[in-house]
């Protein structure tokens, strides 16, 4: 569901003007079918060059790994988001600076008048290795996170500093999963990133029954300037992963081409093999 709001009729159109902060808009949609099993909620961005070379480079993995020296003295790759007002930025770099910061909330509009909010799980959206190995907060045991990040400043575009991303200690600072997901840069300019999990509660009810829903968006992230698009995607997962018909189509196509080619070659072979054999060489 595109909620960029370029279309004037879109509810989010109003958020395009920079004056309206914070801007909240609501988008209604209907699920024709109910979603069984776990449902994944993604946000999708397009025309967003996360794979630009300077963008990809603009991070400091040591800092993200919790290295205290790198925390206060980030890598030069982070320029120009390395220091702000003489304080090192944590997390530094363009990637972190441009972190996606819309807030999405999903409500099921039941038969009754009051909509039920869908429980969106924040944790478990990043790779295990990223969450537990690659990203670490600065060391410090029981010291509050704020102390550990002392001497650093927040990225320029951020509203809150990194240690206030979440109230949960396990999901705060560098190990905030939204952050981790964002930091894993996409390969293509059009991409989607996992935002929330909607876990199935019991076997009897579908996770998301068919019906009317509305999406509540706190619109913070500007994409209009570079002609970007923002979407919200709800998806279930099969054993093969996400819904991507490419491989299937490709296989079928290649398979049939191969078969055709095989037949053609067989015919050619029969026709020519004889002639080449008869033209025997005499040595």
């Amino acid at each position: 569901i595109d909620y960029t709001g370029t279309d004037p009729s879109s509810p989010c159109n109003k958020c395009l003007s920079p004056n309206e902060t914070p801007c909240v808009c609501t988008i209604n949609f209907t699920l024709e079918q109910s979603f069984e099993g776990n449902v994944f909620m993604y946000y999708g961005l397009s025309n967003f060059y996360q794979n630009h070379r300077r963008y990809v480079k603009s991070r400091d993995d040591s800092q993200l790994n919790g290295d205290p020296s790198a925390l206060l003295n980030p890598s030069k790759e982070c320029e120009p988001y390395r220091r702000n007002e003489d304080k090192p930025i944590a997390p530094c770099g363009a990637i972190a600076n441009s972190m996606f910061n819309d807030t999405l909330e999903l409500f099921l509009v039941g038969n009754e008048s009051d909509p039920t909010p869908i429980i969106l799980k924040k944790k478990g959206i990043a790779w295990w290795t990223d969450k537990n190995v690659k990203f670490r907060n600065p060391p410090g045991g029981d010291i509050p996170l704020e102390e550990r990040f002392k001497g650093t400043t927040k990225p320029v575009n951020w509203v809150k500093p990194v240690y206030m991303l979440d109230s949960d200690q396990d999901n705060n600072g560098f190990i905030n999963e939204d952050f981790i997901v964002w930091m894993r840069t996409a390969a293509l300019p059009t991409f989607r990133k996992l935002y929330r999990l909607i876990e199935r509660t019991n076997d009897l009810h579908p996770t998301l029954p068919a019906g009317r829903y509305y999406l509540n968006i706190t619109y913070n992230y500007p994409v209009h300037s570079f002609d970007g698009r923002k979407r919200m995607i709800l998806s279930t997962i099969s054993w093969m992963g996400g819904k991507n018909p490419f491989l299937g189509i490709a296989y079928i196509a290649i398979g049939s081409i191969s078969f055709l080619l095989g037949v053609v070659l067989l015919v050619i072979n029969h026709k020519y093999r004889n002639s080449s054999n008869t033209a025997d060489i005499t040595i």
Partner: protein
Amino acid sequence: MVVLSITAVKDGIDDMKRHKNDNQVNNRSVLVLMNGRAVVKFQSRHTGIQCSFSYRIVTDKWMNIQVGDIIKLENNQLVTADILLLSSSEPYSLTYIETAELDGETNLKVKQAISVTSDMEDNLKLLSAFDGEVRCESPNNRLDRFTGTLTYKGKNYILNHDRLIFRGCVIRNTDWCYGLVVFTGKWRKLQCSPVPSVTVVIDDNNHGPDTKVMQNGGKSAFKRTHIDHLMNVLVLWIFLFLCGMCFILAIGHYIWENKKGYYFRDFLPWKEYVSSSVVSSVLIFWSYFIILNTMVPISLYVSVEIIRLGNSFYINWDRKMFYELKNTPAQARTTTLNEELGQVKYVFSDKTGTLTRNIMTFSKCSINGKFYGIWDSDEQNLKLATGHSGELECKEGKKGLPGSAQLVSYGMDLFQKTEKVDFSYNRLADPKFSFYDKTLVEAVKRGDRWVHLFFVSLSLCHTVIPEEKVEGELVYQAQSPDEGALVTAARNFGFVFRSRTSETIMVVEMGETRIYKLLAILDFNNVRKRMSVIVRTPENRVMLFCKGADTILCQLLHPSCRSLRDVTMEHLDDFASDGLRTLMVAYRELDNAFFQDWSRKHSEAFLSLEDRENKISIVYEEIEKDLMLLGATAIEDKLQDGVPETIITLSQAKIKIWVLTGDKQETAVNIAYACNIFDDEMDGMFIVEGEDNETVWQELRSAREKMKPQSLLESDPIDDYLTTKPRIPFKIPEEVPSGNYGLVINGYSLAHALEGNLELELLQTACMCKGVICCRMTPLQKAQVVELVKRYKKVVTLAIGDGANDVSMIKGIKQALWLRSFWGFFAAAHIGVGISGQEGMQAMLNSDFAFSQFCYLQRLLLVHGRWSYNRMCKFLSYFFYKNFAFTLVHFWYAFYSGFSAQTVYDTWFITFYNLVYTSLPVLGLSLFDQDVNETWSLRFPELYEPGQHNLYFNKKEFVKCLVHGIYSSLVLFFIPMGTIHNSVRTDGKEISDYQSFSTIVQTSLLCVVTMQIALETTYWTMISHIFTWGSLGFYFCILFFLYSDGLCLMFPNVFQLLGVARNTLDWPQVWLSVVLSMVLCMLPVIGYHFLKPLFWPVRVDKVIDRIHHCMSHPLPPRIRTRLKHAGSRRSAYAFSHKQGFGALITSGKTLKAKFPKKNSFPFKK
């Protein structure tokens, strides 16, 4: 850096080897007369004369010899400077030299010192006081001309070429001689190609430097292979292609920055120094230049060197090219020319010592109408069986087939039947001599009168000089090997020519010493084609023994032996058909009175001043008539083992063989027939022997007209060429003549033919012929011919030879070849092959490849050359392909990453790709691959053809590689892209991130590339399995290692891809996409490989097809085709060898002059 240093080390080792060889030559010791300095003036200013204080001879190194030194040379020493003969141990200061290294002739030549100096003999005092002044012409390339004057004690003496001993000669039969060094020429420099050659400039006119001026003759050029050139051109292409791509990307970047990047600056600001998108795109151009530079294969050069090195080791290690008798393996002396061996189109061969062994053997004879010796066919089989190891080896390729075993056993039977004749009854027999017919020995033992007379005549009628250093060990010094063979034969049958003095010949006849009185020698010349001796036997009978060409001798026979003549002629026909050289032997008993009478006439004729030659020959004819026929001999000019077979095989491989020889025309043609360069099915043979431009031109024209009438009618491209744009070499189109023709051209004509416009005419004609024989050639001409073909035909040429006279031909680097007084610069064949055989080591030292038997050439070319070429081609195409496939992915990715010079792969992969992941399999492929094994490649020489036309790697193939690489990179980019686009892992987590994407692309790329090499490999060994699959496995190991927790935690900024491998590769869709990419990349290749032989069949494909067929169904035993020489030819040329010495005797020296020389022999013993 690595690339350069490896190459440097390799070349360094090559140089070291050469220097070692050089030093050997340079440090040969020579005896120099100290303080004996004469002044050699090259028509120039005078310099001071050193006074002599002490007279001693010191040993010095050759390299320190200077012009003006007086040196002492001893028997069998190699002369390494042009020296003016002063005196020698022999009477009249005669000195015998062998000029094998100059012109390939092994007979002795005589030089004589001028009388004034010869008186000095070995008086050191006189010699060192010698202070003459030599004025001579500047060095030139004429071997038979020299003019100069010696001023000594105020008198002038004329010097001609008889006084001069040229460098490269070997002193023979002369204990010592003294000489004055006239030209040194710095031979040692010539030995060594990397050292700049040296010229000596003799300034004639303006009184320049009095001795010699050394000049650097320019850096010697490397021998480069065609593939090297092609490679360089291609690298340039790639470079341009790269620039083009970078330019496109830079423009793309400019557009992108304008359209998107400008607005994207909220999230990704431009660098502060980037003021506009133009600046940015200039930067991007260079960024892409760096990223895409993997396309320019730098490591290619190293790999190519390694492959060549490997392939030359194969040549060195080849046991089938190891000559046991001499314990010499084949040697690849340069490692850079291997693949060129697979492309040879023209072989230029020396004759003596290369095709032939330069050994004449007495193989058959017919005495008084009775035939002795074994029939040819038997002999062939015998040879096969009796451990002629070389020959067996050469036939190895064919030996693997069933059937030859029977042949061998048959040969063994035959061998037992006709064992070597036992000469043990004869104490003086030469142990090396072998003869296979017992009946002759029995006849000798029985005391058959005719047989005895036959051998007596053989042992008397010759001009051989015996040498008996150790008692019982006779060594004959013959002017022609034919004579040597005959005398040796007589010796073995019990008629030992023991020694000669001026008036007697001592022969040990069946153990009994008899002394014949030598009355006259009627020497050989080309018109007479016979020689006779007149002796007085111990019984006081005067006998004339004559031997000569059958055609001549027949007419001189006494009518009474007509029937015998017919029988003998029949035998002679048989001999000739076996390719043997034949001679007739006859005798005449003379009346004492008649002889006296004749003797008077003879001396009269000799003393007559005018028209002496003519008169003498009339006198000779008077006595040489009414001869009684004794019999005929047949001498085999022994070819090296397997030569005819080799030549047949090579010509089947469409390699043209030209024989360039210093020999006589008849000999050369004879040999050409014997070794199948010419055969009787040929439609014609042209002999060009004109003496001036016009006739040569006429002869060439008429030859061409006969071969292909229309070629003259058409507008001649050469004429056009000559009229329009001379000086630019162009490629002469291949013309197919209507039939097989041979061309024989001799040295004089060639000298004309090589001038100006005629050389193209010559080339055009010669190239249409099946075989070309050039005889009477100087070494320079050899090089010129090679150069001619090389320049205009643009094909790979190979020169093979064994003597120093072939060096110019073999040596491809520009070098000054010193020959007498000649400096010249030329580059010759692409490949030089030296045979370490009879004529010394010169050729070997200068060659690129060296082995000891001609027949190894077929193995070198057809097996090693072909393999090297095929491997190199496969390697190159694969190497280019893999780099294209690797690099171009970046190009496609640029369109999705804002042309930001973002790489697809992680940096470690880029580093390792060429170095680790793909280097071993491709090296394995190019070192171990064989498309067909050696048996088949020898069996089907046609397989060699693609190399000659350079079919396997040329610009077209390169474009194919390029297209293939582009296609693969497209697949490799878009399949993974489609796979990850908007897709997620099974647990909903993301997969479409950059790092996962690069991992997928990397993995697919390696799989595809590995599969590709697996397809290319036709010969799987354990090593190729290990290399190919091992590399792939190794990739995964490295991948997991690099992406492991520990490493990444240690250096988080260096190894950023923590856990990517684990998270990506456990996802089935990744593997599905890898398989898909593989299938997609392979399909067109397989299809192409399948369709190509069907739609565009090349001959080779058919052959390979047939080989596969043969391999599945064993062949029926192959019927060996016997090499039968045609019966229609007569080969009575034995005497043609002898001209050298005969000329000396008849050219002005009286018989008297000759005799005293022989007096010395008793002293020598």
